[in-house]
């Protein structure tokens, strides 16, 4: 579906070019939920921006369904972390969700908006302005806007990073449901280990500077997953442990090296 081979990205920095990604080899299959984990500044957002066609690769090959990526590919939609700056404050929720599909005939457009709002549980709030809603609802509007495009691939850049723990859990479960319903492929960037293990079919850890893929791990936890039951499973805890280790965590902050 989406793949990159030997992807290298160098960005201009204050003191010369900064080498962000080095020969990253990464691919996502149709319908898969893959998380990209890494500490802050590890290049995970850059990787997502390259996949979304928002940032050109310096070297290597990036493709979506076999075609090289230069600009946002058809059927691939990015959801940003900062919902406040991604929604148009002068448009109501409905009109924000319709933004990408306004070329469609009215009946189809309105139908898609209804479906997308229903999927994120905002059917009642369509006529309000987004800045009247809570942060979690605003992020759901952005997700609904992406869903209205009927994407094959959703690229999500720390979408729940700015939300409180309870809202985050609710949105994680909603995203699971949406993915089960639509079969959309998801690439999910996060720095939250629990979130990555809980949501993914597979996760990769970016490590080093310039970054490379340090760990690629299948997550064979049964679905549907549950915030309490799944997180008490022994295999969940083992996977979580393994990811923390890959991220360089040592057991106990006071333990001797």
């Amino acid at each position, binding site marked *: 579906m989406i793949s990159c081979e030997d992807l290298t990205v160098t960005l201009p920095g204050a003191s010369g070019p900064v080498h962000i990604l080095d020969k990253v080899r990464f691919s996502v299959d149709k319908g898969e939920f893959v998380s990209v984990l890494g500490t802050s500044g590890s290049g995970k957002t850059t990787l997502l921006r390259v996949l979304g066609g928002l940032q050109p690769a310096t070297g290597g090959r990036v493709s979506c369904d076999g075609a090289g990526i230069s600009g946002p590919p058809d059927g691939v939609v990015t959801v*940003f972390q900062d919902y406040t700056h991604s929604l*148009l404050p*002068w*448009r109501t929720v409905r009109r924000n969700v319709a933004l990408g599909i306004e070329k469609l005939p009215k009946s189809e457009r309105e139908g898609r908006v209804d479906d997308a709002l229903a999927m994120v549980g905002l059917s009642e709030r369509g006529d309000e302005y987004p800045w009247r809603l809570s942060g979690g609802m605003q992020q759901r509007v952005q997700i609904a806007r992406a869903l209205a495009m009927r994407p094959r691939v959703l690229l999500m850049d720390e979408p729940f990073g700015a939300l409180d723990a309870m809202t985050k859990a609710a949105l994680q479960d909603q995203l699971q449901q949406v993915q089960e319903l639509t079969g959309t492929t998801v690439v999910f960037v996060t720095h939250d280990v629990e979130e990555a293990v809980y949501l993914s079919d597979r996760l990769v850890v970016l490590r080093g500077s310039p970054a490379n893929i340090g760990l690629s791990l299948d997550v064979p936890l049964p679905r549907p997953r549950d915030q309490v039951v799944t997180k008490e499973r022994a295999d969940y805890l083992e996977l979580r442990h393994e990811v923390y280790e890959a991220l360089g965590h040592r057991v106990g902050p006071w333990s001797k090296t």
Partner: protein
Amino acid sequence: MVKNLNWVGAAVFALGLGLWELLVRTGVLTFSYLPPPSDVAVGLGQLLGSGELSGALGHTLLAAVSGWALAGLIGVAAGSVLGLVRPVWTYSMASLEALRALPIVAFVPVAVLLFGFSVQTEISVAFYAALWPILLNTVNGMGTEARLVETGRVLRLSRAATLWKIRLPAATATIVVGLRLGLSTSLVLTLVAEMVGNPAGLGFLLVSKGQALQPGQMFAAVFVIGVTGIVLNAVVLGLARLVFRGQLAAAGEA
């Protein structure tokens, strides 16, 4: 409307008028030609009765508003191009800054020389006066937040659609500020052009009543000019709120 009226402020205003009346009537203020407010009211009645006022007001409004409307069209279009196309900005901004620094009043005699004692002089001066705030506010407004423009790319909007659906609406609140500033300077400069150029409209009415030693009527003209400015601003703001409800609400202006 009545609920929002600032009663205390209105009372102070009325008190000021009363004091003015009192000081003139009791001879404390002894200018030869300072009328008390009651004389100004009488003057206003005379101007209304003779039909002079409506003719002059209509003339001034026509000149100021048509110059301003033209400036709105050209200012928003040119400002968009300047704000969006970097090379155009680089080549023209130095000249524009230099022209803008020139006090607009200095342009009035130039317009008189070019267009004679005609309404064209007034319109061109009103146009020139309104052009700057509209143009520069549009240029500023075009500095759309990067994330919004990126949102347009992600949703596969064309360049034209991004301009129409994202950049222009994002700039609307700023452009409306430019339009309001432009309208008030348009009115001022139209009046100046009527005083020193084309002998017509409220500006000429004001000067001619002064020269005819009719202080009541002259002050009435001043009063009408003040009210005109307030009304024009309110009309533009009201229209903008009607047409661009969402944009102004988002900017906290509705």
